[in-house]
């Protein structure tokens, strides 16, 4: 097909890979945004979810927050943030929106994972004289780890997708190649950008898959 040929030509042209608008720079931006925001989101969501799960409180909040997250369009949040004072901080709106959308899956999965830990095991830990903190760190978190990691993986894929949409609102990342292609009415560039984004998203998913496979048996869960 003609489009495939010209897309290949676009991708094969070294001029498209270097410079500030080049693929490598955009890829680095995308990766940096994803990793930084994943770490920030984990630091926000996991402690809250682990403590709530340990205490068994706030379950309705932790579970429903991910439904709310799904109903709110990412694009709308990005544009709204862009028009508020946050919009003046360069990548500010993108980072805030990315974190907002990565927190719900982390929170929900970690909370559900903590609550699904066999109550008998927790009581046994209590019976052995473990304090609340010891139970949390040595019993509940290790047993809930598969679910927690599943949440991290969903959040990472979500982050890659959101970082792409950020390009619509002027943020950096691989999505910029696509939006620039639309502005130039260049179908090969749009398709080339889309392929890069799709491959990147699948690689992120694949990395988690491999980490899960190679991880110790107790971290893999009974899948």
């Amino acid at each position, binding site marked *: *097909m003609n*489009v495939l040929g010209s897309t290949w030509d676009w991708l094969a042209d070294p001029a498209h890979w270097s410079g500030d608008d080049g693929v490598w720079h955009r890829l680095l931006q995308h990766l940096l945004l994803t990793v930084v925001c994943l770490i920030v989101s984990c630091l926000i969501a996991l402690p809250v979810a682990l403590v709530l799960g340990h205490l068994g409180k706030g379950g309705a909040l932790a579970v429903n927050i991910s*439904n709310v997250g*799904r*109903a*709110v*369009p*990412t*694009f*709308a*949040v990005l*544009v*709204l943030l*862009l*028009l508020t004072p946050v919009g003046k901080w360069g990548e500010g709106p993108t980072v805030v929106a990315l974190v907002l959308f990565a927190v719900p899956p982390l929170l929900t999965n970690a909370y559900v994972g903590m609550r699904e830990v066999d109550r008998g095991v927790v009581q046994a830990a209590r019976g052995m004289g473990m304090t609340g903190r010891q139970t949390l760190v040595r019993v509940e978190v290790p047993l809930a780890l598969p679910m927690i990691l599943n949440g991290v993986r969903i959040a990472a*894929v979500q982050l*890659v*997708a*959101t970082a*792409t*949409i950020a*390009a*619509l*609102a002027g943020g950096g990342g691989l*999505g910029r190649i*696509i*939006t620039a*292609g*639309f502005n130039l009415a260049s*179908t090969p560039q*749009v*398709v080339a*950008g*889309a*392929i890069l*984004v*799709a491959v990147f*998203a*699948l690689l992120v*998913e694949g990395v988690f898959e491999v980490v899960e496979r190679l991880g110790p048996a107790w971290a893999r869960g009974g899948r």
Partner: protein
Amino acid sequence: MTAAPDDCLARNEWICGDYLSSRRQILLDAVGQHLELTALSVLIGLAVALPLAVLARRWGWAAGPVLAVTTVLYTIPSLAMFSLLLPVYGLSATLVVAGLVLYSLTLLVRNILAGLRAVPEETRQAARGLGFGPVRLLLTVELPLALPAAMAGLRIATVSAVSLVTIGAIVGFGGLGNLIYAGMNTYFKAQVLTASVLCVLIAVAADLLLLGVQWLLTPWARKGRT
């Protein structure tokens, strides 16, 4: 010549009653397009997902590939998905619908398949013992029992579709997303906020509607609890 009126539109406020009254037709058109794109894609997704899930249930070997393909599709970010379909459909509403169908498909196949798999083997055997053929077994026993799981998938798919339609603004067919996109370029705060709130309202309304449909379709589920 009169001076520019000092209303909330001129001051570019977030919440603006004048915006609602003066742009009513634009808003209604956008909501209409939004609903049309959402409904069309979810319905097509459902029509494709149902046979796929049933086939994957019948032939166990098909389940693996079907689930793998749908997982890959779901991983692709929406902006990239719409862009990948550009050479096929051009700048059209069909492109947005096609992209959304692929996402709904993923969620629906997984949920319907999970629902079908959760039907207890004893129930199926009892139905066979009563002389049910495979078609009757599927239509009168398996599908009704899979309904709660399928409806859960349908609700997630619909709510996601409502939110993803906005990305269609990149090709000019994004329903309320068009208003958000235009509002972003002109720093029109009232338009962005109004369109965003309407999006969320549509998602919540659609979710409640489907919850109501589920309640009507599963009379046996509500008899137990009073």
